[in-house]
């Protein structure tokens, strides 16, 4: 169940965040977050619901703006990019949504083609078909190509959501609660897929989750968000080897739920 070691380049931080703060009205969600994601690394961000985990990756992808702090992705400061530069950066940063966010009026094929044909307008029909078949094969769902999202199971939707981000060949993957709402067997399939993506596509990833099995199976390193800050980080064992009641409660609830 433990993740095998990945080749991580600790000299090269593909994402670097310094003193990030974000509030919604009087609710202070992130209160000074610091984070480095190294090339080739799967970094798991753990935390209870509502602690700002998803807010963090939405800020990284430029969907939300921070109140203060510095966010650097692949050497670029996200806050100071023009619209065009942000689009270029987003080609390199894949985002897998918690509810998959598949376009429900399009078939699986159209979902996968959508970002490709809009970003690479000179591709031939054959090249598009090949790219679609390749990523679908990669997530093990070649047979679903002509199905509508409503005809897919939760696990299949997650896979297609991941395939849709992979089709642009991103360098970084951001997974928002990849195993939320799935049965335990499907969770393990998705965790294995996350590891396969890391190996096959050579990606670095931030995996947002509150599922400890997912954290253990996919994380090279784990950071725990407590009260708006990263207060613990390291391997799974290092993070949970503590007397901090908040961490112990989180651990116990996860395995007794």
């Amino acid at each position, binding site marked *: 169940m433990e993740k095998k070691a990945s080749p991580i380049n600790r000299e090269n931080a593909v994402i670097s965040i310094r003193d990030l703060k974000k509030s919604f009205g009087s609710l202070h969600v992130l209160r000074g977050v610091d984070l480095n994601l190294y090339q080739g690394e799967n970094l798991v961000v753990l935390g209870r619901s509502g602690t700002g985990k998803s807010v963090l990756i939405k800020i990284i992808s430029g969907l939300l703006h921070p109140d203060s702090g510095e966010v650097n992705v692949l050497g670029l400061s996200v806050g100071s990019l023009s619209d065009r530069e942000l689009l270029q950066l*987003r*080609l390199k940063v894949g985002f897998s949504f918690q509810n998959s966010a598949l376009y429900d009026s399009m078939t699986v094929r159209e979902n996968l083609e959508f970002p490709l044909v809009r970003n690479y307008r000179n591709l031939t029909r054959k090249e598009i078909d090949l790219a679609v078949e390749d990523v679908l094969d990669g997530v093990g769902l070649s047979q679903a190509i002509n199905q509508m999202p409503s005809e897919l199971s939760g696990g299949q939707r997650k896979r297609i959501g991941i395939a849709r981000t992979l089709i642009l060949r991103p360098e970084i993957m951001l997974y928002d609660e990849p195993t939320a709402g799935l049965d335990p067997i499907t969770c393990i399939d998705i965790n294995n897929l996350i590891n396969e993506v890391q190996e096959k596509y050579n990606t670095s990833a931030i995996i947002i989750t509150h599922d400890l099995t997912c954290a253990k199976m996919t994380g090279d390193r784990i950071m725990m968000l407590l009260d708006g800050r990263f207060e613990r980080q390291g391997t799974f064992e290092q993070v949970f080897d503590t007397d901090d009641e908040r961490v112990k409660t989180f651990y116990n609830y996860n395995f007794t739920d």
Partner: protein
Amino acid sequence: MAQKSDTPADSSRKYVVGRKLDALFLDLYKINRFLGRFFKELVLPPYEFKEIVKQCYEVGYKSLPLISMTGFITGLVFTKQSRPSLAEFGATSWLPNLIAIAIIRALAPLVTALIAAGKVGSNIGAELGSMNVTEQIDAMEVSATNPFKFLVVTRVLATTIMIPVLAMYTGFVGMLGSFININQMEQTSLPTFFVGAFSSITFLDIFSSVFKATVFGFTIGAVSCYKGYYSSKGTEGVGKAANAAVVTSMFLIFIEEILVVQVVAALR
């Protein structure tokens, strides 16, 4: 004399009014930015021609049955209801002319726009609202595509192009409904009906009608997209977006009707 200080109720009222004014100005600012972005995205490549055609089909072709029925009934009933008043003066021969003026100048664009606000506006508001709630718009954004161009520009263009076409069609079926009633009652032939109908219709009448319909079309598209695109999260947000798209569009359509009528009257 000492100045009277505010009671808690006064302060609370001022606070509520202040919040509402804040919200109003914020909304105006957002609408301004939305329109600015629309015109910017409209002219900048790449262009989503395929999606524009698809949306024109959705707005135009799929509205035809409802528009046909409404236009036909409007023409027929308006003729039937107008006859007694004209009959009192022995002026039923003026019916085609009266109906043509009413339909072309006012009813065709207005009825079409109101029907489209209900059918198309609610559809766009709910569709974009639902896409917003389920993070599909965010998904487009993070996959380096421009959701505004794909979702908003195409739909606003489609309504702006198709509502005038539908309004002309409504005018045609409305006149047809009117002719059937007049033909039944007065045995007027089709050529006689049309000669009478168009005897006092000018280019300005047709131009203002098409212009009005274009403005209405733009309003329906822009309002519905705005309400859907910026809907609040949650299923309630989708319902509110659809509802606000219809109500706000209809309200603005009536305001625009008054304004355009005043301008055309001054030009006449």
